[in-house]
C-alpha cells in the first residue's frame, strides 16, 4: 500500500520486516496475488507463492477434495493476471470442486476499481468501475463471486452489499476449504 501510494521509504521498511519474519522458510504462501506479486518484484529470489499457484504448480494438486454446490463467478484480479501471473491455476482448482458450477461473466478481466487508495482518492471513477463490475455479475445467475485477493473482494462485496444484491463474495481459500 505504501509503496504504490508514493511512500516508498515506509513501504520498503514494511517489506523488509516481512522478509525478516519469514527468514529461513522453505516456501511462503499467501492468499493474495497482489502481495505475492509485489514481494516477488522486490525479492525475486525468495520463494513466494500465491495459494492457488502453490497448490497447482508446486504441489501438482488440482483436486483438493472440496465440495461447494453453488454457481460461482471467478473474478481474475488484475494483479493475479498481470503481476503475479498465476495463469489458470484458480480455474483448474475451481473446476475440480464437487458441485461447483463456474459461471462466466462480461468484462471479467477488467479492473473492479479498487486500486488501494484509488478507491478513496478517485471515488467517483472507482464507483463507476465498481457499478459496471456489479452489473456484469448480477447479469448472470451466479450466487457467489470469488477471487484470489481480499482487497478486490472487499470492494466488490461492498458494492454488492450496498445494492442489496443476491450475489455474495467469497475468497477462493474458503471455497477450497468447504466440505
Amino acid at each position, binding site marked *: *500500500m*505504501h*509503496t*504504490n*501510494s*508514493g*511512500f*516508498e521509504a*515506509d*513501504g520498503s*521498511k*514494511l517489506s523488509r*520486516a516481512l522478509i525478516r*519474519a519469514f527468514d529461513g522458510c522453505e516456501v511462503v504462501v499467501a492468499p493474495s496475488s497482489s502481495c505475492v506479486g509485489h514481494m516477488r518484484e522486490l525479492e525475486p529470489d525468495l520463494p513466494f507463492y500465491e495459494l492457488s499457484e502453490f497448490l497447482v504448480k508446486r504441489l501438482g494438486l488440482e483436486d483438493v477434495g472440496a465440495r461447494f454446490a453453488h454457481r460461482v463467478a471467478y473474478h481474475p484480479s*488484475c*494483479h493475479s*493476471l*498481470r*503481476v503475479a501471473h498465476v495463469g489458470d491455476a484458480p480455474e483448474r482448482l475451481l473446476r475440480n470442486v464437487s458441485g461447483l458450477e463456474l459461471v462466466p461473466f462480461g468484462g471479467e*478481466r*477488467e*479492473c473492479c*476499481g*479498487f*486500486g*488501494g*487508495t*484509488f*478507491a*478513496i*482518492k*478517485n*471515488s*467517483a*471513477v*472507482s*464507483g*463507476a*468501475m*465498481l*457499478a459496471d463490475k456489479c452489473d456484469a455479475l448480477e447479469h448472470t445467475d451466479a450466487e457467489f463471486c470469488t477471487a484470489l485477493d481480499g482487497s478486490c473482494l*472487499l*470492494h466488490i*462485496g*461492498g*458494492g454488492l*452489499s*450496498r445494492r442489496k444484491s443476491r450475489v455474495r463474495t467469497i475468497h477462493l481459500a474458503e471455497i477450497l476449504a468447504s466440505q
Partner: protein
Amino acid sequence: MTPTFSQRAEHELQNTVQRSNLRRAAKTIGARRAMVVASTPDWEELREAGRAIKTEALGRLDEYLLQFEASATAAGTTVHWASTGTEAGEIVAHICATDGAHSIVKAKSLTTDEIHLNEQLAAHGLDVLETDLAELILQLDHDWSSHIVVPALHRNRNEIMEIFKRTIAPDLRTDEPADLAEAARSYLRMRFLNSDVGISGANFAVAETGSLCLVESEGNGRMCTTLPRVLISVVGIEKVIPRFQDLEVFLQLLPRSATGEQMNPYTSIWTGVTPGDGPEEMHVVLLDNRRTNVLADPVGRDALGCIRCGACLNTCPVYTRSGGHAYGSVYPGPIGAILTPQLDGLEKHASLPYASTLCGACYEVCPVKINIPHILVHLRNQVPHRKSERLAMRLAALVLSKPRRVEVLSRLFRPLARFANVPGWSRSRDLPPPPKQTFSQWWRGR
C-alpha cells in the same frame, strides 16, 4: 488552482451521453486491436524490437539528432531548434510572415497542440484551419481533443451533424457518415487548393536519411504536406529513430495498436525538397519543451518512447469512464498520466499519477512495452504529499510493522467497525461486518 483529476472526472462522469459514446467507441477499437494482434504471430517479437529501437534512439539521442539535422539539411530541408513551445511558435510565425502566408492548413498533430500553436499564431494574426476531420469538428465547436488517435471520440454523429449545420453546412440533412464526410470534404477542398502554408507534425523522423513519416487515415494530412508551397513540420526530439529500416517495425506496430488495422491507410514519407513535386520550401522545427529533462530521469524517460497509438487509452478502465478531458492535457489516458506531469510539471499535475488503479492493462497492450504502472509509482514517490496524508501513512506503517500492534488495534476497533464511515469509500460501498475473531485468535485456537 488547477482542478485535480478527481474533480474533473467527477464532472465528466455526469455527462452520460459522452460516457456511453466513449465506452462504445473504446470497446470497438480495443476489440479490433485484440483481433488483429492475435493474428500476428510475431507480435511479441515486434514489441520487443520496437522497444529496443526506442531505447537505442533515446540513449544516443544527441548523436541521432545531429545526424538527422545533417541529412535533412542535405536533402534541402531547413532545420530549426526550439527549446520551448513559445520558441517553436515564434519560429513558425516568422516563417509564415516571411512567406506572406494567407491561408494555413494543418494536419492532425499532438505536438502542435501541446504547445498551443494555433493560439500562438492567432496572436500574430494568423488563422490556422484544422483539416483532420475530428480536429475540424472540435475546432468548429471550440471543443478540444479527448483521445490521442480519435480526438472527437466523445462526440457522436448526431452531435457532429448539429455542429456542421451550425457552421459549415447549413443544408445538411442527415447524420449518415457519408453525408458528414461529404460536408467536411466540400468545405475543405478549396481551402486545401488555395493554401500557401501547411503545418504538420511527424510520427517518425529518420536520422539516417533526414526523412519525416506521417501516419494518418484520411489523406487530409497528405494534402497538407503536399499541396501548399511551404511545409512546416513541428517534431518532438523524441520522434527520431536511427534507420529508415526501423520504420518496418513501427509501421507494423502502430496501425495494429491504434486502429486495429493490418496496414495504415495513408503513410507519407518525405525527404526534403524535390523540384516540381510537392512543397518548394520545407522546414522542420525540432522541439525540446522539457523532453531533455524527462530524458535525464532513468525511469521516467521510457515515456518518451511512446508512438501515440492510444491503445493504453482504449483498454484503460479509468480513461473509459472519466474520458480524456479529465486529464486536463492533450495527452490523456495512462500515457498522459506519466507524460503530462513530466512535460508540464509534477506539482501542477500532482493528481495525474494517481489517476490509475495500477491494474496493468496499459502495459499489457503497449506496442513498445512502456511499463506505465511502474512509472506511475515512480512519479507518485516524487509528488509533494499533503502533511495529513504523510502522517496517516506513517501511522499505518508503524502499526503494520509489528504483528502485535495489528492484533491489539484490530481487537480494540472491532466493536466500532460497524459504525465506520470512510469518506469516499462509503459513498458507493459498504464495509464488511467485523469478523467474530481476529486472525491471531483464530490461529491460536485451531
